[in-house]
């Protein structure tokens, strides 16, 4: 008796219908099983403190290279009572710092609001859970400038800081979580020779100082070129009721007299004028995205010079303006 078997379909080169970690992908060497892992703080972080997240849950559970496409950051307060339900500007003071091995994503912890443009009106909000209790939350979805390749066993370490904001009287402790979204390297696919590691620089000024200019915060600190893909910016206002909330257009474009509360000027170390005259930050950074996207190559030690100033006499509330630059550089794997 002859065993009749169903003929196998020819297998295209580089394609494995059952790559490591899950069902097959028909994307050939580019595709692998989708992967996601996350970690969160064990307890609320006190203001001025930080908490490293459990790196054990932030890496692939099986031996395979993988790509990270997106990092999602969330912050929320414990349930509070007796406070006015108000937005609390969490994205200004909850800061994340990432690195993989010795490859840092930033020099220090970056406020989560500066990693990415706004994608939802609920990025910074407050949720009323009952008439007397509320929880504030903020979330950011950062699509990495380029997918980041990770060797088997490697992980992106994450440390969360609850920074103290000088112009705010009361800040709430926070919980935080992070989620990495990516793909496993398809079986048989070769890992890349180099990879693009993100880099984020940032700078801030509050309204207690009338003028501030960055020094080297927005510099390319590497000996190789850095590709900057966008500026990001967020502005927060300490309202009359003590609510510290995110604003952008209000007071940052121009008031009835045509004055913005906070204005910005940018040039670079090569002498290029980027924002040649002082303009309201809301005008420079699209108020619907809180970001300005482009693509700019920076040579080693080149830098952007950002100056922020209070404009006119229009400062009626205390505010905080943060500016970030998001890009990537090539690193050997």
């Amino acid at each position, binding site marked *: 008796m002859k065993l009749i078997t169903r003929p196998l379909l020819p297998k295209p080169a580089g394609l494995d219908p059952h790559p490591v970690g899950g069902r097959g992908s028909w994307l050939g060497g580019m595709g692998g099983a989708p992967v996601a892992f996350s970690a969160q703080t064990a307890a609320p972080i006190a203001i001025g403190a930080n908490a490293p997240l459990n790196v054990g849950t932030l890496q692939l559970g099986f031996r395979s290279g993988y790509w990270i496409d997106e990092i999602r950051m969330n912050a929320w307060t414990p349930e509070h009572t007796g406070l006015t339900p108000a937005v609390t500007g969490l994205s200004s003071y909850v800061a994340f710092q990432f690195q993989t091995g010795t490859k840092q994503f930033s020099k220090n912890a970056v406020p989560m609001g500066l990693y990415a*443009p*706004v*994608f*939802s*009106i609920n*990025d910074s909000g407050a949720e009323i859970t009952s008439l007397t209790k509320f929880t504030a939350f903020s979330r950011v979805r950062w699509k990495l400038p380029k997918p980041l390749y990770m060797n088997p066993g490697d992980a992106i370490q994450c440390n969360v800081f609850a920074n103290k904001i000088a112009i705010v009287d009361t800040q709430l402790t926070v919980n935080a979580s992070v989620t990495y979204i990516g793909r496993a390297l398809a079986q048989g696919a070769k890992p890349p020779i180099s990879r693009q590691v993100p880099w984020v620089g940032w700078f801030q000024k509050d309204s207690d100082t009338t003028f501030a200019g960055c020094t080297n915060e927005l510099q390319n600190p590497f000996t190789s070129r850095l*590709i900057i893909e966008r*500026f990001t910016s967020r502005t927060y206002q300490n309202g009359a009721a003590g609510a510290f*909330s*995110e*604003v*952008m*257009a*209000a*007071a*940052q*474009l*121009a*008031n*009835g*007299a*045509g004055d913005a509360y906070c204005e910005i000027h*940018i040039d*670079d170390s*090569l002498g*290029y*004028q*980027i*924002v*040649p*005259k002082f*303009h*309201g930050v*809301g*005008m*420079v950074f*699209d*108020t*619907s*995205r*809180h970001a*300005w996207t*482009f*693509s*700019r*190559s920076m040579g080693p030690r080149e830098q952007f010079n950002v100056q922020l100033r209070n404009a006119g006499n229009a400062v009626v509330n205390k505010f905080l303006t943060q500016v970030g630059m998001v890009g990537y550089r090539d690193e050997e794997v």
Partner: protein
Amino acid sequence: MGRPDFLSPIFLAKQLGTFASEGSEITPPNIDILNPNRTAMMIDQFRFSFGTVSDGSDLGSGFPPSYICADIRLGSIPLTNGLVPIVALCPRYLGGGQLGLIDRVRANNTNGEETMLTWHLPKPLYVPTDVQITARFVRRTPYPVSGDPNGTSPPMGFGIAGRSMPEGMQKPKTIWVPWATYTQCRVSSASSKFGGGGTSQIYVSQDSDLGNMHDSPLNVTQFTGWNARYAIGGVRSGMVRSPFFVQMTLSNNKMLIRDQTPFGLLFPSDRGYFNLNAKLMAKQFVRAELEIDPPSGADAAETLEGTTIGMIGYRELPMPWSAQP
């Protein structure tokens, strides 16, 4: 020779002040929107900001971008079909932070707030060193309420976001020139087509409104839609519920929007646009037909007047200034 990967971002802007009266015009001084790096640039966005608006009307007609119009040119090449309302140029994008959405502008009728709209050009616009962007803005009569409900118009700002080209970079052989045109319902006629409780109305755009007036094909990338009702709490229930329909046909009688489609579904209030990728040949046009039959009751006063539909696209032209040094 400049580095080909080096395009330095550039943002040019000018606060324009307020419009004196209906019909008055403001032109940004050329020096304020001239690239100070003295190099060619690629323009990605035009931005329009408006200061505090106080709107005493229940209708959204007090929304300044609906009655402040822009005429923008690259040298002698028009980018807009004459004066175009700014709402026709700029759709809304979800994620407006606090105030990026039009809806938020009129959250409080008496204490208006600032807002900004952005026109993302369909393709980057190359601006040679020896040619300049010029713009003029005119305040027209608001619709559907006659007279400016704001009393005075808010201060306006104009910005250009782009990238400076490095010195010595070769000029392109062709450039992408954006084109924006619109139709706005100003006088609608009563119709008895529907039998609702309110006053039925119908409006058909003029052939010259949403057309390609050029001798070269126009790549149409987007239609924008704005209605006064968007300004009230996002979208007034009547926008979707009541029979407020849009149909679009091409000048060769081909259907673009075949069925009568609710305006609020075609142009959702959180975006106000839909994208497409179509080619409109020379002298072809799109005809838009709006119909409304408001029910009786609270929505009986629904009107087409003020409704604006914009058409955005671009043309590919040979570099017009290549003969110049």
